[in-house]
Every structure is written in structure tokens, then in C-alpha cells.
């Protein structure tokens, strides 16, 4: 069976059409959107991408990581540091970034899975590693310590060095989000993907039917960390600055988890829908709080909205939409 056939097997035709139209719209979007609209769409795609990366671990394999900022931060710092100090382009730096994050993921995974830390205990381990790293980077001169690392802002488009304006970064993050979507689909429709779902549902029963549980979990954390590192690199070159306080912040790790949770854990389209909903709500509430001149009201509304969604659609927004409009993807 060809790869394309395998990827589209069992997907309703209307869903394929829908995906095709969506992709076409996203490809031409920069021509029609203003600066603001484009920046919002960039944010949506960024959260959709990292959400998909995190979803591999939690949604597919059932391993709760609350320290994914570690991988994004490591990736961003390594690529940006190499560029800043030695002029190594980000496409090359990406390899070092991904390798380092994958290695970090392997260490966290090994400690957690080898010693059977499950659920919240594993989550605590992921937080701890992210925090250690934040403190270490605070005191590491090569990356600028707590004062931060700054890249020179340069708006002339330079694909080789990932320097340029928002349109360039838009297409890069679009390619990443689409690539992650295809990868997730391919993974889910493979033996490894089914083994992950089995582990998520019941690790003991999975092992009894021959699933190498430890190995499968390790692969999940390494893939997830590696993908997250790519987002970190993109983020570092998009914003041109890095601070340990934000790059490894607990809040950032939480941000990564929101889109898949709101959109639908374990689904392919959930993280993408979640990113749209979250970013959309965020922008609306920002406008509202500016309108009423009440600072801080954004966070209150944002929190309330999330609460309401989680209360009424605990499986996520996407499974509900998919059900209503017959797109067919259920939580697996």
C-alpha cells in the first residue's frame, strides 16, 4: 500500500475535501490578511504545532508531561546560541537542537518509565527537569544568563538563516503544522500508534499481548521532545529573544497542553481546533479589556471560557464538531 493511500485510508471524502480547502486557504491567506491578522494566524499555527507534538505523548501514549517547555527552550537556545556565537544557520543548528531535546526527553523518559513513575508523579518529574534547566540557564554565560539572548532583527527575507518578516515565519510554521499533522496520522495508523493507545488504556494488558511498553513509551517521549524542539527553534528566530524565565517557564509548558485538551486529547484534529479556539478567545478578550480599560479582565474571561469548555465538552471541542458534522474522527 502506498503511503498516500495508507494516510487517506478510511477518511471520508468530504473530510479530505475540507482539509484540502483549508490548506489552500492557509496558503493564500498572507495575501489577504493584514499584519495583525497574520500575527494571529501565526500564533494559531504555532500552538497547533506544539499541541500536536505534546498530544503524541499524552493523547496517544497517555504520558502526562507538564515540562515540555524544557524541549522547546533547549531547542531554541541551542540553535540561537550557535547562530549568535558562530553564525551557524538555524537549519543546521536545528539538528543539534533536536538531538539535545531528544536526549533530554530520553533521560526524563528513562527515569520515569524505568522506575515506573506513573501519572502525576511522572508529571512532577517533567516539571522538575524543566525547572532545573531554567535555573542552570539563568547562570550560564554562553546563553546570556538571566539577562537573555538577543538575535539581531533583520527584516530582509533570508530563508537560509531564517531571517525575515512575518510572512516567512508564517510559511515555515504552516509547513511544520501540516507536517506534524501528516506525521501524527501516519504514526496513529501504524503498529506503534496502536501500541501507544493500548498503553494509554491499560499498560499491563498491553504488555500481556506482547507490547514492549517501556520501548514504546521511550519512542513517544523522544519523538514528542524532538518535534517540540523544532517549535522552540522557530520561536527563538521569530521573536529574536530568549530568556530562561519565559523559555522554561511552567506557564509555557501549560500553554502547550491547552490546545490539545480543549480541542480533544488523542485526536488528530483536536490540537488544531483547540489552537483556533484558544487564540481566538485570547484575541477577543484582549480587545474587550482594551475597550473597557480594565486591565487583567482578559485573564478572568479567558479562564472562565476554558472552564466552561472543559465542563461542557470534557472530551474536547473537536470530537463534538466531528460528530455533529459527520467528519467521523472520534477519540481513539
Amino acid at each position, binding site marked *: *500500500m502506498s503511503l498516500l493511500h495508507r494516510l487517506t485510508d478510511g477518511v471520508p471524502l468530504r473530510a479530505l475535501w475540507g482539509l484540502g480547502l483549508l490548506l489552500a486557504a492557509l496558503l493564500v491567506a498572507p495575501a489577504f490578511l493584514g499584519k495583525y491578522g497574520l500575527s494571529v494566524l501565526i500564533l494559531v499555527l504555532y500552538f497547533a504545532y506544539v499541541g500536536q507534538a505534546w498530544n503524541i505523548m499524552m493523547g496517544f501514549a497517555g504520558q502526562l508531561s507538564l515540562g515540555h517547555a524544557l524541549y522547546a527552550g533547549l531547542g531554541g537556545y541551542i540553535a540561537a546560541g550557535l547562530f549568535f556565537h558562530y553564525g551557524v544557520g538555524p537549519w543546521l543548528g536545528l539538528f543539534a537542537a533536536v538531538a539535545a531535546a531528544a536526549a533530554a526527553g530520553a533521560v526524563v523518559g528513562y527515569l520515569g518509565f524505568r522506575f515506573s513513575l506513573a501519572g502525576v508523579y511522572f508529571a512532577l518529574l517533567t516539571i522538575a527537569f524543566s525547572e532545573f534547566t531554567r535555573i542552570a540557564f539563568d547562570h550560564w554565560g554562553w546563553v546570556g544568563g538571566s539577562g537573555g539572548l538577543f538575535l539581531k532583527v533583520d527584516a530582509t527575507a533570508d530563508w537560509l538563516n531564517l531571517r525575515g518578516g512575518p510572512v516567512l515565519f508564517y510559511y515555515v510554521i504552516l509547513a511544520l503544522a501540516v507536517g506534524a499533522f501528516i506525521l501524527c496520522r501516519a504514526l496513529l*495508523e*501504524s*503498529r506503534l500508534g*496502536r*501500541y501507544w*493507545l*493500548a498503553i*494509554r*488504556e*491499560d499498560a*499491563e*494488558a*498491553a*504488555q*500481556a*499481548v*506482547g*507490547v*514492549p*511498553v517501556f520501548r514504546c513509551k521511550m519512542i513517544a517521549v523522544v519523538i514528542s521532545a524532538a518535534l517540540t524542539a523544532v517549535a522552540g527553534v522557530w520561536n527563538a528566530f521569530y521573536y529574536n529573544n530568549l530568556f530562561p524565565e519565559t523559555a522554561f517557564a511552567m506557564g509555557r509548558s501549560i500553554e502547550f497542553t491547552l490546545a490539545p485538551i480543549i480541542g480533544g486529547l*488523542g485526536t488528530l484534529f483536536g490540537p488544531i481546533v483547540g489552537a483556533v479556539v484558544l487564540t481566538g478567545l485570547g484575541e477577543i478578550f484582549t480587545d474587550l479589556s482594551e475597550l473597557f480599560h480594565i486591565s487583567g479582565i482578559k485573564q478572568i474571561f479567558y479562564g472562565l471560557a476554558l472552564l466552561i469548555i472543559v465542563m461542557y465538552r470534557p472530551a474536547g471541542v473537536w470530537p463534538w464538531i466531528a460528530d455533529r458534522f459527520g467528519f467521523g474522527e472520534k*477519540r*481513539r
Partner: protein
Amino acid sequence: MSGGSGARLELAGIGKNFRGLRAVHDVSFSVPAGAIHALIGPNGAGKTTIFNMIAGVYRPDAGTVSLDGRQISGLRPDLVCDAGVGRTFQIVKPFKGLSVLENVTVGALHRRPALGDARAAAADILERLGLHDRRHQAAESLTLPDRKRLEVARALATEPKLLLLDEVMAGLRPTEVDVMVAFLRDLNVRTGLTILLIEHVMRAVMALAAEVVVVSYGEKIAQGTPAEIARNQAVLDVYLGEEEA
């Protein structure tokens, strides 16, 4: 759908303690290739602990377990499965969020890495266990008897040479017990699969098992044909209480 032929199971003096509590002590017996044996005993006698030692969940503190002469005790559960042992859980463990078909497909993937092949094999097994109509239902929506059937289907999907069944008849109505007994007997005759079952439903034990091993307080107290066991004084004492002197 099964591995072709059964394997011989041999337990040699296995024992297991939990924090000083002697759960199983010096149990030895063997099940010849292609035979069906039953393991019975009162609650807490150590039957499931014996199963868990065969299946690799626990490493025996003493003794060895071997399959066709190859030692499997000390291996991880997934490697024991690889060696040809399929098992069901007394407290059923379906992959709740997955469909019935996907549950069995996970088992079938063990010997068939391609998803399509595994799914076809799984559908085949579900057909034979009477779960085919329910294949698209979520496993968590099944009734208890159907969950028990699902356990058997998932274990069979790994194409074992030895099948360990932990109280799969419990909770089934007598007619359902007969259906399951007929299925297992047919499977055994057709494929030569070796079966060891823990069972409280004597109707099933009598109908299926060529030999019965009885354990009490972690030790083997008797072994023989169902008829011999039914007459055995030690067994009667355990089940009915010793006669007052």
C-alpha cells in the same frame, strides 16, 4: 488463527513470597502439549499468583517455568507473550476507549505488523467468538460476559501456543458456559493449543479438563482426572471443611 500447535508447560518447584507472606510454595506440575488442564482451589490459594509467574508478571523466588523446555520464568510479560503464552485477566482489562475490533487488533499486531492484516485476523477471531456484531462498539460498553469473551479473543489474537484462562466462565449463564466450553474444545481439537484454566465453574472444569491440579494455601495438594479429584479426601477437606473428630 492459532500458532499451529500447542506447547508443553512445565512448572518446577516454583514459589513466591510477598513481604514474608508465602503465597505459593514448591508447586510443580506440567501440562503436555495440546492438553487442557485446570487449576482449582479456594479463594486466595495462589492460583492467580501461579498464573502471574507463568505470564512474567512476577519472577518466581524459587523454581522455574518452562515452555517446550525453554525457560520463560524471569522474562518480561511481553517476551513471555512472544514465547507463545496468551493470558486473560481475572479482573478484565479491556482497552476501554478503543473499539472491540481495535482491542483484538492490538493483540493481532504482535505477529502481524501491518495494521490491515492484523485487523482482518482480529475480525476473524471476533466472528468465531460471537462478538463480530459488536466490533465497532467501545469495549467499555460491553457487558461482563462479553468482556470475558473479549479477553479470550485478545489473547488468542497473539497466536499463543499456551493459553492461560483466569476465570473466564465466571458470571456467565449456564448456556453461555456451554458455548464457551464448546468454543475452547473446538479450538483445542483443531489447533492443538495447550490450555490451562483457573475455574470455579465445575461444569466447565469437568467438561474440558483432562487433569485437574488443586492448590490450597499456596501448595499443590492433589492432581488427577476430574473423577479422581472429586473423590480425593484432601480436596474434599479443603472445599467442605474437615470432619470434626
